[in-house]
C-alpha cells in the first residue's frame, strides 16, 4: 500500500520558498516532512509552519502521491528531481516546477512560473493553464534543455520555451511567446496556437509542428519537397492522443521547411495546414 501526503498551504508566504526535495516518494514519512527546514529569506522555518500536513493510506497498487493545495505562486522547485509517483498541485505553482524530473507524473490545475520542466529527463507534466518563460529549457548556465518525457500545456507558454531542448515531446495547446524552440537541439514541439517572434532562431535539429496558425517563415528556413507521409503518420497518431487541434491534423504529408540554415539547417517545421 502507498501513502498520499497532503500539504495545504495556510497562506502565501511573504518571500519565495523552495520546496526542492519534497517528492512523492517521501509521502510515507509525514512527520519528517513536517519538520523539514525551508529557507524563508535569510532564516529557516519548518515546513509545518507553512503547510498543514496530513497523510492518507491508498488502497491497492496505487503509486505514492503528493498533493499540494493553495496559492503556491511563491513556492518554487515543486517536483524538482522527482523520480516517480504522482504529484498533484491544486492551484498555481512557482518557478522550477519539475526541473530535472526523471519519472512520474505532475498535474497542475492552474499555472506555473518560469523554468518549468527545464532539463526534464522523463515522466509527464500536465499544466491546465499557462507557463512562464524558459519552460522546457536549460537551467541557468547549462547547455542542454529538456532531455526527455512529455510536457503538456493546455494554455500559453512564455518566451524562450524549449530553448536548447534536446529530447522529449512538448505539446502547447495555446500560444507561445518569442523565441520558441530557439537553439533547439532535438525533440518535438507541437503548437496549436500562435508563435511569437523569432520562432526557431538558431534551431539545429528537432521538429516543430504548427497544428494551428502557420507562422511566417524566416529567410533562414527553406522548403523541401520529399514524401514524409510515413513519419508524419507516426507523429500524427501520437499527437492525436492530445486532442484539440492535434486531433484534427490532416492525413496527407505536411509542407516541410528546414532550418535554421545559420545553424546547420537540420531542424524542421511541419506545416500541415498549408499546401
Amino acid at each position, binding site marked *: 500500500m502507498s501513502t498520499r501526503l497532503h500539504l495545504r498551504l495556510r497562506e502565501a508566504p511573504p518571500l519565495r520558498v523552495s520546496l526542492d526535495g519534497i517528492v512523492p516518494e517521501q509521502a510515507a514519512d509525514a512527520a519528517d516532512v513536517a519538520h523539514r527546514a525551508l529557507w524563508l529569506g535569510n532564516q529557516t522555518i519548518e515546513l509545518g509552519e507553512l503547510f498543514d500536513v496530513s497523510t492518507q493510506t491508498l488502497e491497492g497498487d496505487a503509486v505514492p502521491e503528493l498533493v499540494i493545495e493553495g496559492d503556491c505562486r511563491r513556492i518554487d522547485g515543486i517536483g524538482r528531481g522527482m523520480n516517480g509517483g504522482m504529484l498533484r498541485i491544486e492551484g498555481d505553482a512557482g518557478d522550477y516546477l519539475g526541473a530535472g524530473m526523471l519519472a512520474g507524473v505532475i498535474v497542475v490545475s492552474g499555472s506555473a512560473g518560469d523554468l518549468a520542466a527545464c532539463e526534464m529527463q522523463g515522466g509527464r507534466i500536465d499544466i491546465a493553464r499557462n507557463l512562464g518563460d524558459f519552460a522546457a529549457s536549460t537551467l541557468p548556465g547549462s547547455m542542454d534543455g529538456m532531455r526527455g518525457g512529455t510536457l503538456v500545456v493546455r494554455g500559453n507558454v512564455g518566451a524562450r520555451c524549449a530553448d536548447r531542448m534536446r529530447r522529449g515531446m512538448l505539446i502547447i495547446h495555446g500560444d507561445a511567446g518569442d523565441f520558441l524552440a530557439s537553439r533547439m537541439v532535438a525533440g518535438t514541439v507541437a503548437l496549436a496556437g500562435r508563435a511569437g517572434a523569432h520562432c526557431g532562431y538558431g534551431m539545429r535539429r528537432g*521538429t516543430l509542428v504548427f497544428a494551428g496558425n502557420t507562422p511566417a517563415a524566416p529567410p533562414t528556413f527553406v522548403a523541401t519537397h*520529399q514524401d*514524409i*507521409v*510515413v*513519419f508524419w*503518420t*507516426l507523429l500524427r497518431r*501520437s499527437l492525436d492522443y492530445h486532442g484539440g487541434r492535434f486531433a484534427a491534423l490532416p492525413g496527407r504529408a505536411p509542407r516541410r521547411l528546414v532550418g535554421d540554415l545559420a545553424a546547420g539547417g537540420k531542424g524542421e517545421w511541419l506545416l500541415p495546414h498549408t499546401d
Partner: protein
Amino acid sequence: MSTTGQTTPMQRNGIHIDDTFAEAFPMKATRLIITAHNDTWAQHAAVATTGFATSVIACGCEAAIERPLSPDETPDGRPGVAVLLFSMSGKELAKQVERRVGQCVLTCPTTAVYAGIKDGDPIALAKNLRFFGDGWQISKMIDGTRYWRVPTMDGEFVGEETTFVVKAVGGGNLLILARDTEAALAAAEAGVAAMRTVPGVIMPFPGGVVRSGSKVGSKYASLSASTNDAFCPALTPLARKTELDPGVSCVMEIVIDGLTEADVSAAMRAGMDAIIARGAAAGVSRLSAGNYGGKLGPFHFHLRRILGEEGAV
C-alpha cells in the same frame, strides 16, 4: 533415425498416422513488419528479405512471410507484410536482420520497417542502417520508440531503431508419404495452405515444402547432414533401414518454425487435418515425422497426441 512404431494402428480417413513424433529445437526469432506504398512493394521487400533463408545449415537463418497485413494493422497505416526470422543464436539473428533489412528493405522503394515483437532482447534494426544517411539521418522518439529517418532518392526510409528477439521453436515437421509425385505435392500444398492460417509460424522451404529431408551425419566426414535414406523411395531395396511401404513412391516434408511450442503444434494439427480431410483416395497413405530418437531436441510433437489419440476412423 526414426522411431516409427507400429504397435497400435491409427487411421484417419484411411490415412495411417505413424506412432512417432517430430523433434524440434530451441531457436531465436524475431518478427518484422515491412510496409510500403502498396501491397506490391511490401511483398517485393518481404520476398527479398526472406530469400535464401530455407535452413540455418547454410543460410544463416530461416525466414518467410508470416502473413500480409492490412493498413489498419500497421504502425504507419499502409499495407504491410509480417515476416518471421529464426536463427540458432541471437547474435547470428542480429547479423542476418541487419544484412537482410539493409539490402532488401532499405533498398526497396517506399518501404519502412518496424519491430513486430515488443518484448525480449533488443537487437539493432535500423540502429546501424542509419549511417547510410551520411549524417543527414534524423532520430525521432515517438511514444517511447525511437525511429530513424534516412534520406533516400524517393523521399526517406523510416525504420524502428530496434527489434526484439524471443525464444522460439524450430524444426517441427510433417512427412507426407504418397503413391506418386502428383498426390504428394497436392497434399503438401493443402497442408501448407492450412498451416499458413496459423499465426506465429513459418514454413521456410520453397512453397513451404522440402523434398530433400535429411538425417544427421554422413559417410563423408565433412558433412553434418545427408539425405534421409530411410524415406527415399529410390533406396527402399538398398538402404540398411527403410520406413517406406510398397506403394509409396514419393515423400514430401513440411518444416515448421514457430514462436512457441503451441504455435508449432497448432500448425501441425492444421496441416494434418487438411491432408486427412482429402482422404486416402487422394493418394496419401501415411503421415509421419522426422526425429533423432528424442535425444537431441527438447520439443517432441507426437502426431497422434496432436490429433487427439482416438482410434481408427
